């Protein structure tokens, strides 16, 4: 019987490969009508130390392109910078993270939800970036249709 790979042995590259095989080319949104907008708050610096590396962001960028056909990304030193604080249980010292935002539009269906949920799980694996929580916002939106000007 073949041994199952345990998640702790897998890298972000492995996770991204699985997601790409599962969802690649299937989740691009319509330009009009119902869609989801997902915003991934990706921490890149915590206490001055890198969290998600440039190589990992490259992988993530490629995955979002292959699954959703595109993405928008904020800069690290944008104005204003995106910062977020959180207080771990049992401590009184908040941790300040600096984030970038990755925004994708997707089909409004369960496949898109499943893809982002699995991606969130992958990003939160200890061996990926030792990040307990990666926030992902999900907003149902309606992309407007044009109306004839008469």
């Amino acid at each position: 019987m073949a041994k199952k790979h345990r998640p702790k042995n897998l890298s972000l590259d492995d996770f991204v490969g699985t997601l790409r095989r599962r969802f690649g080319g299937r989740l691009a949104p319509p330009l009009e009508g119902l869609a989801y907008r997902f915003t991934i708050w990706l921490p890149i610096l915590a206490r001055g130390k890198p969290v998600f590396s440039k190589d990992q962001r490259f992988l993530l960028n490629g995955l979002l392109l292959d699954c959703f056909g595109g993405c928008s990304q904020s800069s690290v030193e944008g104005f204003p910078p995106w910062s977020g604080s959180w207080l771990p249980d049992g401590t009184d010292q908040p941790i300040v993270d600096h984030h970038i935002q990755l925004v994708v539009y997707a089909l409004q269906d369960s496949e898109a939800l499943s893809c982002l949920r699995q991606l969130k799980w992958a990003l939160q694996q200890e061996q990926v970036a030792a990040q307990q929580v990666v926030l992902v916002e999900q907003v149902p939106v309606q992309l407007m249709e044009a109306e004839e000007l008469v």
Partner: protein
Amino acid sequence: MAHAVSIQSREQHIHALDVLDRVGGTWQAVGTSAAPVFLLTDAQYDALIQAGVVRTNGQEDQARGKKAPTKKPKS
């Protein structure tokens, strides 16, 4: 004016991310991971040129890409 920059290699992609981190604003990527296209503002595009990530015509700076290994003829 907006600029569309075709990314030609992994090295160029990562170098571009590095440069765009330091330029204010949001940028977009479209296409596929094999042939991504970055949609950039003037400031972002100028920063990529200054850093040598792209040439003024939007092409990759080959000097920063990986050279293909040359095959030696069999003796």
